[in-house]
């Protein structure tokens, strides 16, 4: 890479020449800047490319926004800055700008022949670093490096401001930062730049750009942890320093956290404009149960957002998921978007219910209809993606506030969870988690879109009948609802807390008779993620307990009705996960929700689950998250109805719920739920 070669020389010179030799180094600096230019006009594109090359930049050109996005995604750290035209046939330039800001956090410069004030303003509001009017002159291009430097500088500043003194290996940068303030003065800048370069070079960063600090890739897990930490602290009080401490990720710097937090906040702000009811979710979500700890990191993103904004804009979630996850599973614009969310709440995913795989597990698995709030409309494939998302989401917000404080929240699930959490946290958590994991694991593998439901439902059913085993609830909880699937609880649940997400939970709710009741009421209320919660709420406390036990035992693979929570959880998890995931985007969210529900399960339970099969573990993670949340819901005795519905239109929920129930009922039959009668499903 040019940059490296440039840097190489630069570093060498910088190291050897200290920073006096300004000329060589400063002259080199902007050189090698990696620019991605996007313009549908071939003439302009060619001219821009030539100009940028003349500026000694390293240029990559695209004539389509989609191509540009995929290039950026393939190589996140491969570019320093992006130049984009405003008017493009396949995607609006501002939309691209948003994507890049969310996913990659690169400086973006907009260009257009249009110099109208409105358009320029739009660029500003969407976060563009600059706006160039065409025809672009080479002089204008010669200065674009300033945006890269400025961004870095700001990140440093934030870093500093977060109050941490520890610069770690970034110390040199700090001093550079000070220098940057006088960057107007080229000489100073050179000096600082050189110093920075030196540091850059000497620090073993793999970042070859002298401009760049090593870029941290916000993986799903990392993001989950981040979200969990933020939730724990409270979105308003979350400062990079504390987040960093909470996350406890070696090698992560405050600066990284700070910039990520910035982006996250922006995202949340944007979301808050989307829907009001989401806010409830967010509150709930943010109130994550501390026990969950880092549950929500990843999926938390979505959930968080929801939490923060109180809305669950599916799309934003999806996007966020993707973004947060670092384009993990989430596809661009994760489909999970609001729609899914809604689905989740509306329990539309009959498919989710008792997915193919789930059926087996369903038998006496308590269908923890934790998710009944969560629409189970997730498609199988979505489940998978959900899974991913769920995982991340799970980490996200599912941390339903243990203290049932949320009841007021629209997210009945969350609320319930919260309440339940208080009471049952331990157990529910475990349960849910287990379930979710269960659901997740097995389900996902079987690509059961629905399966989660089945799992979840299965668990519900069993629980109903006092067969705690299959607490599939997690499945429900998993549903897309942003419930923060405490994926993070990975500690309790191995890995895939996604299951939570995947378990469309909702489906689960409906399917299980036992839970059905709960679910019904809950579902109706909650409309969405809450499903799991509802279920829990309705169920007796002790039922929950039994569930938990049962859930645990529900492990998918084992298809046992053992009392091990794990089993249940697993199933639920998978169910949840699947469901959640099917909805794709929502998955992420759902997962979180599921996770949250899982979280509700006592961690203790989770642990039990943990020992369960791998699958269970998987599920557990998912389930745990979900179940936990679900449990909390159940425990709280908040009528499910209130939980969900506010946001999601009770009617929808009801219908969805009904639908689900129906489907569930039918599926249940197949599953041989012990003595679970659907009769009492209060619809």
């Amino acid at each position: 890479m040019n940059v490296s070669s440039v840097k190489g020389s630069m570093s060498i010179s910088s190291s050897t020449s200290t920073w006096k030799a300004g000329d060589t180094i400063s002259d080199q600096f902007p050189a090698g800047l990696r620019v991605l230019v996007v313009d549908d006009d071939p003439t302009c594109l060619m001219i821009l490319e030539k100009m940028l090359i003349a500026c000694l930049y390293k240029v990559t050109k695209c004539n389509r926004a989609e191509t540009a996005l995929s290039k950026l995604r393939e190589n996140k750290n491969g570019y320093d800055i992006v130049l984009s035209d405003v008017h493009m046939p396949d995607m609006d330039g501002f939309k691209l700008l948003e994507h890049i800001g969310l996913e990659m956090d690169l400086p973006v410069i907009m260009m257009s022949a249009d110099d109208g004030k409105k358009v320029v303003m739009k660029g500003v509001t969407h976060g563009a670093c600059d706006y160039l009017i065409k025809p672009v002159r080479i002089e204008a291009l010669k200065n674009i490096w300033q945006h890269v430097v400025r961004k870095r500088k700001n990140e440093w500043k934030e870093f500093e401001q977060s109050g941490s003194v520890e610069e770690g290996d970034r110390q040199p940068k700090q001093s550079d930062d000070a220098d940057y303030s006088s960057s107007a003065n080229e000489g100073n800048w050179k000096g600082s730049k050189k110093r920075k370069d030196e540091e850059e070079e000497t620090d073993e960063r793999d970042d070859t750009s002298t401009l760049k600090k090593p870029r941290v890739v916000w993986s799903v897990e990392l993001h989950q942890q981040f979200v969990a930490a933020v939730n724990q602290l409270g979105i308003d009080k979350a400062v990079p320093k504390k987040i960093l401490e909470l996350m406890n990720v070696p090698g992560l710097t405050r600066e990284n956290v700070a910039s990520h937090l910035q982006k996250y906040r922006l995202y949340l702000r944007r979301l808050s404009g989307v829907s009001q009811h989401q806010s409830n979710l967010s509150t709930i979500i943010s109130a994550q149960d501390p026990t969950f700890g880092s549950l929500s990191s990843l999926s938390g993103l979505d959930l968080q957002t929801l939490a923060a904004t109180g809305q669950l804009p599916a799309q934003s979630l999806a996007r966020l998921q993707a973004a947060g996850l670092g384009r993990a599973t989430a596809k661009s614009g994760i489909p999970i978007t609001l729609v899914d969310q809604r689905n989740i709440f509306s329990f539309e995913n009959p498919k989710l219910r008792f997915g193919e795989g789930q059926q087996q597990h369903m038998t006496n698995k308590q269908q923890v209809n934790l998710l009944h709030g969560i629409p189970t409309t997730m498609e199988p494939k979505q489940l998978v993606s959900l899974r991913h998302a769920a995982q991340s989401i799970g980490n996200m917000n599912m941390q339903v506030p243990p203290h049932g404080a949320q009841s007021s929240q629209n997210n009945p699930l969350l609320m319930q969870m919260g309440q339940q959490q208080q009471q049952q946290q331990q157990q529910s958590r475990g349960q849910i988690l287990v379930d979710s994991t269960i659901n997740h694991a097995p389900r996902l593998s079987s690509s059961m879109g629905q399966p989660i439901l089945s799992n979840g439902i299965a668990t519900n059913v069993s629980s109903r009948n006092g067969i705690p085993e299959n607490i599939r609830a997690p499945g429900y909880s998993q549903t897309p609802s942003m419930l923060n699937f405490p994926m993070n609880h990975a500690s309790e649940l191995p890995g895939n807390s996604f299951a939570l997400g995947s378990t469309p939970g909702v489906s689960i709710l409906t399917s299980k008779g036992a839970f059905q009741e709960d679910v019904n009421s809950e579902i109706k209320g909650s409309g969405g993620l809450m499903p799991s919660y509802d279920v829990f709420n309705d169920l007796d406390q002790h039922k929950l307990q039994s569930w938990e036990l049962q859930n645990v035992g529900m492990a998918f693979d084992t298809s046992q009705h053992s009392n091990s929570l794990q089993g249940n959880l697993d199933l639920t998890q998978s169910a949840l996960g699947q469901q959640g995931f099917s909805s794709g985007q929502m998955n992420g969210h759902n997962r979180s929700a599921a996770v949250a529900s899982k979280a509700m399960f006592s961690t203790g339970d989770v642990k039990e689950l943990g020992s369960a099969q791998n699958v269970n573990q998987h599920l557990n993670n998912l389930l745990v998250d979900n179940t936990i949340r679900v449990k909390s819901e159940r425990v709280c005795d908040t009528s499910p109805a209130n939980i969900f519905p506010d946001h999601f239109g009770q009617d929808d929920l009801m219908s969805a719920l009904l639908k689900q129930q129906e489907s569930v009922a039918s599926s249940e039959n197949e599953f041989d739920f012990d003595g679970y009668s659907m009769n009492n499903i209060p619809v």
Partner: protein
Amino acid sequence: MEVGQMQRRLVDYTKSLFMEGFLDAQFLQLQQLQDESNPDFVVEVVSLFFDDSEKLLNDLTMALDQPSVDFKKVDAHVHQLKGSSSSIGAQRVKNACIAFRSFCEEQNIDATLRCLQQVKQEYYLVKNKLETMLRLEQQIVAAGGSIPMIELGF
């Protein structure tokens, strides 16, 4: 004609294009971008401009020929043409596009049709001029001479 003479002709001709407003300073930038590593840069860009513009003009003609004109689409095309012509430095084409756009906003069919004609006219004019100029350059290079850099006094 000997090289020196050709070069003088080229310079005079190019200057006149600037004077008459067919080309603006942006074109100079393009010329300055041309170097040994990319000796045909100007020719390539100009050819690209021609191809692209002709397509746009066809699209515009078709769009305005519809019984019910979609002005948004027309405006989009004109915007595109404006962008590329300004990038190349085809000043008069760009100006014609600006006028065109304002009439599009008003959704004035007659005026926009007239504008289209105007734009086409300007386009063919500048195309002609550029081709002449480029041909002169080619001849000079073929005769062993180098292309003189234009020093614009204004």
